[in-house]
């Protein structure tokens, strides 16, 4: 392989670069560079590929174009200050990241949040899952050449954004959780709006399904393409829908329930072949299951407090009390200035996010600032299989494979 010299052709970032067309035709292999600014890479991933005709022989992903230093930043601020940064990890489902992070720190601090808070968290997690999968499906369709489903799913996403905005004040940089609770209780009438959305969504999903699921072209492009065997998927540390599409029953909501997921009745969709089409089907089914969970929640939403009232060193008291009572004023001051006080120790917590298992490994030496925080990003692990998966496929398949892996670079590079 290596004795052939090849010329470099760049697509996406800088057009042709010192490539002599004739020589290229004569040489057997071609080095092709895709990205880091290319529509199929969903952000700033770069692929360096070696092609034999149309066949990919080698594929090396290059990451880091969105490395923003989140882990170093985390070591330099208090636990609550880091919440906004978790939004920007997987920016298609910020609420789920917020929740995963909050639970990780709470586990470390040994705080238990009340039932209503858990319910709110489950609710926003599932809404985030729907919103992320909607985009995943829409963009996947777009990668396979279908523009319309994208418009349909985005219409639904906009409805979700409106709901998020009413709850958190922002469309998707929500920063909604705090250590020991959430930022505020759900507004009045919000649940009714969610329930109306839940009634409308299945129709939209059906429309998307009509456009894609039995679409001949879509089937041709996705079926049997990018097959990942279950043993490969495990070996490369895949999680989330990508792992389940390969037939591994792994869902942390069932296996290691957190935030009261054991109370809800839902199924975990599993694929059989592990190809791009299965990954798409698993996502669609997951949206339906999420809807089930949300409907169960709406029917029976627990009352009570929405933050851990007894965690005096973790969660700031309500505003009225701060303004009227000395003790609460000091408590608030301490939490704001020094951060929530956490015991020394370490924790590893993973939550089942739309993209896979998002893990936080936090080492604390006590106090309000973490000593070390590692973010285990599902997209990072899911992408690592690309080196193994891409060779043997046609160049045109790479768009579909990337679309079906459904990764986000913000989380991958951190």
């Amino acid at each position, binding site marked *: 392989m290596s004795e052939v010299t090849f010329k470099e052709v760049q697509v996406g970032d800088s057009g042709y670069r010192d490539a002599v067309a004739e020589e290229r035709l004569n040489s057997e292999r071609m080095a092709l560079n895709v990205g880091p600014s290319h529509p199929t890479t969903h952000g700033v991933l770069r692929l360096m590929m070696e092609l034999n005709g149309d066949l990919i022989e080698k594929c090396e992903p290059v*990451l*880091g174009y969105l*490395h923003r*230093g989140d*882990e*170093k*930043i985390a*070591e*330099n*601020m*208090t636990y609550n*200050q880091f919440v906004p940064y978790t939004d920007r990890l997987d920016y298609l489902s910020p609420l789920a990241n917020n929740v995963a992070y909050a639970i990780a720190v709470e*586990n470390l601090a040994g705080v238990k949040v009340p039932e209503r808070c858990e319910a709110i968290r489950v609710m926003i997690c599932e809404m985030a899952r729907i919103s992320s999968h909607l985009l995943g499906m829409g963009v996947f369709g777009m990668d396979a050449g279908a523009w319309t489903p994208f418009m349909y799913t985005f219409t639904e996403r906009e409805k979700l954004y409106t709901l998020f905005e009413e709850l958190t004040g922002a469309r998707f940089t929500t920063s909604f959780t705090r250590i020991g609770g959430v930022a505020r209780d759900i507004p009045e009438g919000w649940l009714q709006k969610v329930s109306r959305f839940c009634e409308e969504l299945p129709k939209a999903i059906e429309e998307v399904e009509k456009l894609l699921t039995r679409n001949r072209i879509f089937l041709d492009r996705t079926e049997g393409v990018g097959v990942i065997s279950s043993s490969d998927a*495990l*070996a*490369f*540390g895949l*999680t989330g829908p990508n792992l389940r599409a390969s037939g*591994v*029953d*792994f869902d942390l909501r069932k*296996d*290691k329930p957190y935030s009261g997921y054991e109370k809800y009745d839902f199924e975990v969709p599993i694929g059989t072949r592990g190809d791009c089409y299965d990954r798409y089907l698993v996502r669609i089914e997951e949206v339906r299951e999420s809807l089930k969970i949300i409907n169960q929640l709406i029917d029976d939403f627990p009352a009570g407090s929405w933050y851990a009232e007894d965690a005096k060193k973790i969660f700031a008291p309500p505003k009225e009390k701060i303004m009227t009572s000395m003790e609460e004023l000091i408590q608030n*001051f301490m939490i*704001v*200035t*020094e*951060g929530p006080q956490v015991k020394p*120790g*370490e*924790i*590893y*917590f*993973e939550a089942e996010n739309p993209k896979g*298992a998002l*893990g936080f*490994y936090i*080492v604390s030496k006590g*106090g*309000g*600032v973490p*000593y*070390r925080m*590692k973010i*285990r990003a599902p997209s*990072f*692990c899911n992408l*690592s299989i690309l080196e*193994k998966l891409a060779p043997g496929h046609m160049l045109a398949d790479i768009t579909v494979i990337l679309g079906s892996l459904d990764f986000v670079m913000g989380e991958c*590079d*951190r």
Partner: protein
Amino acid sequence: MIDKDFIEDLLKKHPYSNVKHQNDCLTLSCPAQQIIDLTTELRDQQTFDLLVDLTAVDQGEAVENRFMVVIHLYSCIHHDYIRIHSDCTDNESPEFPSIHSVYPAANWHEREAFDMFGIVFTGHPNLKRILMWDEYPYFPLRKEFPLAGIDVPLPADDVVEVTQASVEPAPMMGGPFVSSGQGFMSDAEPRAKDESWTEKKEKPV
């Protein structure tokens, strides 16, 4: 199930490892040389088939073994995690055996740990930087490295020629604002890390 018997059994087979007390999951410590042995056993005999995470912790320059590699494994049968702590012996040029042959997933995680801490994973097939660019001279997650960064040239010469841009330390007067945690009330107020210079005020040399 991860219970007493399981742990005793494991320790008997691997006398070099120790159980550390942690409240969330079973934590073993293991010398670097035995890491491949232990992980292979955990994968093949104990169904820990998913490497969820591999990372490192910089314990500070004062500590005898400064860099500690932390591995998290998950078992789809036990539904539980196991954590392995393992120290790198050399503080100047830390080395660690690569477990890439046991878990292919370790490939990128090890590259990241190399990128961020400078730990060389021996036996790794393709050990180069993954997040920072290849020529970057520092290891950002080491404790002595400042959050703001350090002056280095931008990787592309032709761009530098046109724009005169370079990698500069970020001005920290804009935050993050963190309390020192010491002193009374106003002394403990959150402050920016480095207020000595701004975009307008020259950086003191």
